[in-house]
């Protein structure tokens, strides 16, 4: 097992296309780090540079205590699991798993031992003589993981390994991979575009966009305190709601109001910071998560709108409300017993917790600078 360090790593493709810009990250020994972001953000390129499948334009990659910039992939002591499994179709499962070890001239006995142990770990014992085309998607993915495990590498690299699986299998495999990490305690770098995968699997998450790191945090911090508007909108399903407006002062209270003045939300104490107070009467963006909105009486101030769509998910209901003023769609998460119908006019507000309540310190409102997109509070 080993540390993986990326210092100032950049990748520029012909035509001056900057795929990765000044990427700095230190992955501790045994840590599970997820790289997440939209398509084309540079996460797979970063992973491929660590693997040695792409040349680095700038910066340094260190695996263990060795700089590996010009070291070929086979000598970097890494193993990779690909999105499309990349199993050799003409070899059976056993030979697929043994291939890397045979090339490294491992003794037959050791190869047999490693494969049997790994097959037991992944429940592949009965499939060792089958060819990949005789396996299901989930089985193929387990074989791909098994091929990586038998190598006992310093670091595992996963490039969107669950993308080709159906939803149910994806949930199952997520659990399997996380369990494996607990068992092997190996350093793992995992790339995905699915933020739910990222949140459930990573010890730390690296959110990327346009080749740049947006934020590196543990899942809870990422969710509760996104550092910029992009992260706030990317992490969380349904995504965070955004409203443009200004902070206004009313005695001891601060409120947020949209330009039309139709929306006025009192800002909870926990969401107020000294920096926020300095933004009074300046344009900024308010972000509110769907679960931080509540449906209140229509005569109270808040976001007033008409329910367009109701999505029952079982445990809760998602209301898609069109704000009367800005015509923006606001998503609100309510209890499944909430009585609402499409066409109803509702008022959405942010609950103000009492100081002794459990969630008194919860940040329900997130403010972002309109120019930079950075978090203010």
């Amino acid at each position, binding site marked *: 097992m080993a540390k993986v360090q990326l210092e100032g790593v950049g990748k520029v493709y012909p035509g001056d296309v900057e795929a990765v810009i000044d990427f700095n990250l230190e992955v501790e020994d045994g840590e599970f780090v997820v790289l997440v972001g939209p398509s084309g953000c540079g996460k797979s390129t970063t992973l491929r540079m660590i693997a040695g*499948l792409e040349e680095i334009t700038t910066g340094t990659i260190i695996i263990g205590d060795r700089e590996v910039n010009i070291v070929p992939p*086979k000598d970097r002591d890494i*193993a990779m699991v*690909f999105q499309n499994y*990349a199993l*050799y179709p003409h070899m059976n499962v056993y030979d697929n798993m043994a291939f*890397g070890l045979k*090339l490294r001239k491992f003794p037959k006995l050791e190869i047999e031992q490693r494969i049997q142990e790994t097959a037991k770990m992944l429940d592949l014992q009965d499939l060792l003589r089958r060819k990949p085309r005789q396996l299901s998607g989930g089985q193929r993915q387990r074989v791909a993981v098994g091929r990586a495990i038998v190598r006992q590498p310093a670091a595992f690299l996963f490039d969107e390994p669950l993308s080709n699986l159906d939803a149910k299998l994806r949930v199952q495999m997520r659990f399997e991979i996380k369990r494996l990490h607990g068992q092997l305690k190996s350093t793992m770098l995992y790339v995905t575009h699915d933020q739910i995968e990222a949140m459930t699997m990573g010890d730390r998450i690296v959110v990327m966009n346009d080749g740049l790191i947006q934020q590196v945090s543990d899942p809870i911090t990422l969710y509760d305190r996104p550092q910029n508007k992009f992260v706030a909108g990317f992490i969380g399903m349904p995504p965070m709601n955004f409203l443009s407006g200004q902070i206004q002062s009313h005695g001891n209270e601060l409120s947020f109001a949209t330009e039309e003045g139709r929306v006025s939300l009192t800002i909870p104490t926990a969401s107020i910071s000294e920096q926020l107070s300095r933004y009074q009467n300046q344009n900024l963006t308010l972000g509110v998560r769907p679960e931080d909105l509540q449906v209140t009486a229509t005569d109270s101030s808040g976001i007033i709108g008409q329910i367009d769509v109701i999505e029952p998910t079982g445990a809760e209901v998602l209301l898609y409300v069109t704000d009367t003023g800005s015509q923006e769609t606001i998503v609100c998460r309510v209890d499944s017993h909430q009585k609402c119908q499409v066409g109803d006019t509702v008022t959405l507000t942010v609950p103000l917790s009492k100081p002794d309540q459990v969630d008194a310190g919860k940040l329900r409102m997130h403010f972002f600078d309109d120019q930079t997109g950075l978090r203010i509070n």
Partner: protein
Amino acid sequence: MVGLGLSYLLLPKQRQRITTIQRYVVLLLVAILILSPFLWLVSAVFKDTDVLMQYAFLPPLSEWSSETLNLKNFYNPETEELDSLFEAEKTIEGEVHFWRYLANSLFLASTSTIVTLFFSSLGGYALAKYEFHGKYAIISFMLGTMMIPGLLLLAPLYNLIYKIGWMDSYWALLVPGASSAFGMFLFRQACLSVPNSLMEAARIDGCSEFSIYLNIVMPLVRPMTGAFCLVSFLGNWNSFVYPNIYIQTQSKLTLPVILNQFVDVYSQQYGIFLAGTLIAIIPPAILFFALQREFISGLTSGAIKG
């Protein structure tokens, strides 16, 4: 025809049966048409010279005897004259057996096929999977060379072979044909369908670039390899012009050249020439039956997505 016109009166199952029968009848007629020359050849080879032209195919069963059907076209030690295929032919160099010509053809066709396969597959693999400066210029140039008829190059090639000193040598037959632009294009198309992720997985596993070609890519393009081997072997096996021009020593000649000589030598004993022709058909036929699945798969690969 009336029956065909009244087919609408039949049940669907009966109509299907009639259609199937019609199909098989047509196919049988076509098969007979195509196989007739071959069947004539086989029957002619086993007929005695005296009755060769007397019967279209085999004589009637009642006339089967050692006088009408025998193996004298292959071997006839009863007479002192040279009048069967496997008796040694006396030449300036000494006695040359027919087996020698067969062996020459086998050696040249096999070696040429293997060498061409190696270079064509390697070239096609490089053109499919690697990016390098001038790649597309090379492809365009190769396309251009394919437009030149081979026989146009005969004179300059002969001049070159003569100056190198390869006249009457198998190098003259093996080296010029060692690489095939057509073969490279075929393999390029086949290699394009191999996912790059397989190669990347192999690199991480520890394969060298040549090892990726040998252990990962080539097994996956087996249909194309089989098809190419068959086409290449047949081309080399049937090659007449270049062996006829470059090879002067009798014992080095190949089957097509010798069979051409037999047309004159055995003009009165046509059966011997036909026996030689039958022998010449056997190796390519064996190869075809061995590789027919790959041949058909290689021809149709890429026809259907997925």
